[in-house]
């Protein structure tokens, strides 16, 4: 698998995801600076977490108009897989590659903790390593992660099975207590209709190493590496 990681000036999870990708496929991804307009020939593009451009306007809003993201959108349209994690998910939503919006958390505070999420669909190159309905534990760390979409969009997402991950309790129930940020329907991650783009708020790259207490994020990188080998 050849992968590229986009680096904005305020990205801060670029190294973390590069480490997870290298573990999964044996070689390091290409790091692509935000001012680039060309991308190398890759199978996977990762938009990492962080505070791209400081996120002073609205998380992901400025990044969506960066030179590199126009190229990412073109590649995505051509079928290249795109994974957006945390701030990367916010960027993908702001570019319109995924629907809806990510709003300030319900409690109006940054939230950093390990949460349970349920794999809603194992039918994608990103989630092939999980089982449908599997409950996994991943860290979250964000201030603007409350997923919002209008009713029609939500219905479409549900009808087409495009919700990738949902916040749940340890035993798999969707409820307010298990929802860390007030996301509608507990949505933690989404696919595009072709399932070639995934955006999610939790950080699988921080749960890909036994020393860190969880390896629940590892199957995502492993299944990508296997599918895109």
């Amino acid at each position, binding site marked *: 698998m050849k992968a590229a990681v986009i680096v904005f*000036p*305020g990205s801060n999870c670029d190294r973390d995801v590069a480490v*997870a990708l290298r573990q999964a496929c044996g070689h390091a991804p290409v790091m692509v600076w935000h001012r680039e307009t060309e991308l190398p020939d890759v199978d996977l593009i990762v938009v990492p977490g962080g*505070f791209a451009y400081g*996120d002073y306007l609205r998380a992901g809003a400025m990044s969506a108009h960066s030179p590199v993201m126009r190229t990412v959108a073109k590649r995505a349209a051509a079928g290249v897989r795109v994974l957006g994690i945390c701030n990367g998910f916010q960027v993908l939503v702001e570019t319109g590659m995924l629907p809806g919006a990510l709003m300030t958390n319900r409690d109006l505070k940054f*939230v*950093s903790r390990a949460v349970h999420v349920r794999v809603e669909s194992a039918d994608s190159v990103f989630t092939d390593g999980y089982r449908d309905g599997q409950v996994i534990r991943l860290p979250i760390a964000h201030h603007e992660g409350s997923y919002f979409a209008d009713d029609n969009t939500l219905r479409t997402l549900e009808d087409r099975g495009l919700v990738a991950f949902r916040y749940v309790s340890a035993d798999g129930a969707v409820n307010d207590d298990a929802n860390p940020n007030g996301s509608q329907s507990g949505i933690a991650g989404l696919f595009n209709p072709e399932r070639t783009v995934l955006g999610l708020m939790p950080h699988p790259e921080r749960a890909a190493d036994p*020393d860190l207490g969880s390896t629940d994020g590892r199957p995502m990188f492993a299944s990508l590496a296997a599918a895109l080998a």
Partner: protein
Amino acid sequence: MRTPAPDPEVNQALGTEHGLTPDEYAHVVRILGRTPSYTELGIFSVMWSEHCSYKSSKKWLKTLPTTAPWVIQGPGENAGVIDIGDGLAAVFKMESHNHPSYIEPYQGAATGVGGILRDIFTMGARPVANLNALRFGDPSDARTRYLVAGVVAGIGGYGNCMGIPTVGGETEFHSAYNGNILVNAMTVGIAQADRIFYSRAAGLGYPVVYVGARTGRDGIHGATMASAEFSEETEEKRPTVQVGDPFTEKLLLEACLELMAGDAIVGIQDMGAAGLTCSSVEMADKGGLGMDMDLDAVPLRADAMSAYEIMLSESQERMLMVLKPGREDMARAVFEKWELEFAVVGTLTDTGRLVVRRGGDVAADIPVGPLVGEAPEYDRPWEAPPGAAPLPDGVDHMPGPPEEVLERLLASPDLASKRWIWEQYDSTVMADTVAGPGGDSAIVRVHGTTRALAITSDCTPRYCKAEPKTGGMQAVAEAWRNLTAVGAKPLALTDNLNFGNPERPPIMGQLVACIQGMAEACRALDFPVVSGNVSLYNETDGEAILPTPTIGGVGLLDDVSRRGSLALTGEGETLILIGQTHGHLGCSLFLRDVHDLEAGPPPPVDLAAERATGDLVRDLIRDRLVTACHDVSDGGLYVAVAEMALAGGVGADLRAPEAPPLAAWLFGEDQGRYVVATNDPNAVLARAAEAGIAAAAIGRTGGNALTLGGQNAISLGKLRHANERWLPAYMAGSAEAG
């Protein structure tokens, strides 16, 4: 450019307004051989402020041990540096931002984090962990909730954006901090041991370069503010608090580390307190050189700034560096890539003078040697602190069922879970956090290795108030113990000494005695001080804070898989209490929060026993003889076991001995003790006996409640509710918080 307003006339009265005593002002005139210019007065006043000159504490700081074979750099640089093997070094320091955080909590705390981060990456280290030690006033004080909310959001806002995990710290409440909260921020970084950058200028004619953010009027006289007591007019000082921009700092971090990978930099110093003044003077002084600076070249954010304002601005996210000649263009390209300012603002000279020009005129011309070398150093009169009175009789009675007392203590502000705080800090970014907030020490893996740093921050101010020397000793011992409790070898510490007005002999006496206690403990435990910060004048309307020498400790785990955790994990394991138990209740939380009595001497610290006990516990963890380990500190044994049970979700039954009395056994705060859980009690007891350390089986793990000899059951659910509920309820303004 609009012309700056004309400078006021300089005289002794203006010197007084700048915080210089009449003697100090006369000394300035003597050094210069004339009346200082306004800019010169500003420069002297900040360089000679308590904050920058350590004039009250220097004499005593010199008595702290600062060396060990693994110490690469002790106090005197931006941060301390220790060797952690494999060609790597840990670079760390703790620094206060107390005064600004009280005035403007969000920005005060945020820029405190920004400042300490800069201290670390200035030395060529990539920051890998942040901690913070916070002390607030009484929860019932009207301002406390606002300060907690603002400080926590500010710390999170800065560290989270930088992408440096905030992995630990401590938070306490006491009415003595009502008018002066403490915000002590610590950062640990990792560098190549042979690639450390220092602040010494060198190279006649070499260019002096300004990088980072532009200079504005924010923070002018911050250092002077931090060197004075608060009064009713504190609100008026809000404009002297700086405003932070973590995004710019992130760019500055990456740009500096990128440039540091090459060989362009000769010396580098961040602009913290007293901004351009302090950085230029320190660099020149350490190099024994002069510096000519043209302030017209400084990138400005505000119009018509005078030389005085530019030299004293504390605008954030700025650095000053000396480059090798001819490397300017290469360095400029790096900073332009990161969209930061880059300006050659001066050159190094052999005059030994700091010459500052603005609009072609000389605004300051000061001999650097005397400016630094003749800074006042005071041997302030001090009174030996009185010893604490003995406890009255009868304080060891249990005022109700012990499990209800435990429940009450776990819900008290100091022992209540601080989850509400640390869940606002990204603790897992950088993907090396092995143990985050909530344990005895945080554990952060050295990236790409199986080794890890253990990091903690500790102080027990109520002990320091009662007996400052014991308190100073205990703070060092507790940090050492917390590192040990996760299996790490303690290597060195940074200290942040927070005290009241040193011009009052009883306060100076607290400072002296705390330092004496610290020094003794550092020596006994081979645990030197490598960096630190002093914050004095923490008083409002004559009321001083509790003496608070915060200790930030750093240790090393050679193999991260052999680490200790406080969480009970298995059923039917034996709990063993290691260390001597006398049932010391003086200064305990039990007395304070249950009997409403702040009295008695603090628990004595036996440093030889401390060391022997810790060495034993570290070996037990390394040899995998224990499944859980927790030091016994605030609240005593019962609280320690409850914390272990809550962390692991496994209950325990304790069997109390005949003596001491039950309350003293459960809640006494004797030092130098650990509780461990083990499947092999005979081996653990034998190892303790071999080492001559007291150890006794005190119970077994299992179930989902805590019991005492099978009685007095209290469910973990109930304890968890008590422990987790207080802070969120308090912050929500709920009556439930009491």
